[in-house]
């Protein structure tokens, strides 16, 4: 459980650090993130290879990769939105930097998945049951965030909404979708962790 939380928080933090490096680093932060994702995927692949039969199954591996990548992207997006501010515009230097870095991180996530995924993927009905549980949690969190946004947009007309640009609102919605994915993946990883801890207790 601590591992799930710490990897999520570290990935969010990494995304945040990358967002704040956008103006000062000599190399594009998106490329730094991509490089770190690839290195982490190589290290994780070797770690899982070493575990042999004790290694997590294909769906759990995909969840670890998806959750950590989504957290980096979410951290980067949220910190960038915070840095740019409510009057965000797309066709500006900051807007282009956000777009370039975000898509570079998405590319990094795809490469990392390709490197560290199970070479012989297998999943079954138990994984499907765990996935259903995660999807349900993700759906509920998405509805919760959307309700908060609806209230903000509906009742903040006088004060908050005029300060928000349309691109910012669109990016808030993207963030809501990524956060719901994070919740879904975390709940599924928690289910696998719970199952494994019960197994260890019995052993």
């Amino acid at each position, binding site marked *: 459980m601590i591992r799930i939380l710490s990897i999520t928080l570290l990935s969010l933090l990494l995304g945040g650090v990358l967002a704040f490096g956008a103006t000062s680093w000599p190399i594009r932060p998106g490329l730094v993130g991509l490089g770190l994702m690839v290195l982490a995927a190589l290290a994780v692949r070797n770690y899982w290879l070493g575990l042999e*039969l004790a290694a*997590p*199954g*294909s769906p*759990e591996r995909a969840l670890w990769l998806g959750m950590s990548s989504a957290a980096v992207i979410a951290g980067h997006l949220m910190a960038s939105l915070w840095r740019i501010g409510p009057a965000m515009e797309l066709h500006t230097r900051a807007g282009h930097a956000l777009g370039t870095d975000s898509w570079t991180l998405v590319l990094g996530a795809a490469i990392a998945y390709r490197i560290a995924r199970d070479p012989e993927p*297998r*999943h*079954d*009905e*138990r*994984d499907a049951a*765990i996935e259903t549980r995660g999807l349900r949690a993700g759906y509920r969190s998405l509805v919760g965030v959307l309700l908060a946004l609806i209230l903000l947009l509906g009742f903040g007309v006088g004060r908050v909404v005029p300060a928000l640009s349309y691109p910012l609102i669109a990016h808030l919605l993207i963030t809501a979708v990524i956060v719901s994915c994070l919740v879904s993946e975390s709940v599924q990883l928690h*289910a696998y962790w*719970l*199952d494994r801890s*019960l*197994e260890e207790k*019995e052993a």
Partner: protein
Amino acid sequence: MSGTPIGNHLRRLRFEHGEISQDALARAVGITRQTIVALEGGRYAPSLELAMRLALVFGRRVDDIFFWRDEPPALTFHAPV
């Protein structure tokens, strides 16, 4: 994935069938090794299809492999009058 009311003899059957490994059994019925571990630990109750596949692999009937851990629930059928 807490305990289920359905138990099974999978571990014993594996050993009776030449100590077949969990991974080999999982491959034979098209599931993951982790699910065999969960089944043997009584933390997962299989679908009817999976139960029948396991029975087929061991050449047994489903109720030779799976059983109620405690007294089964008292279920009654009320025929329409």
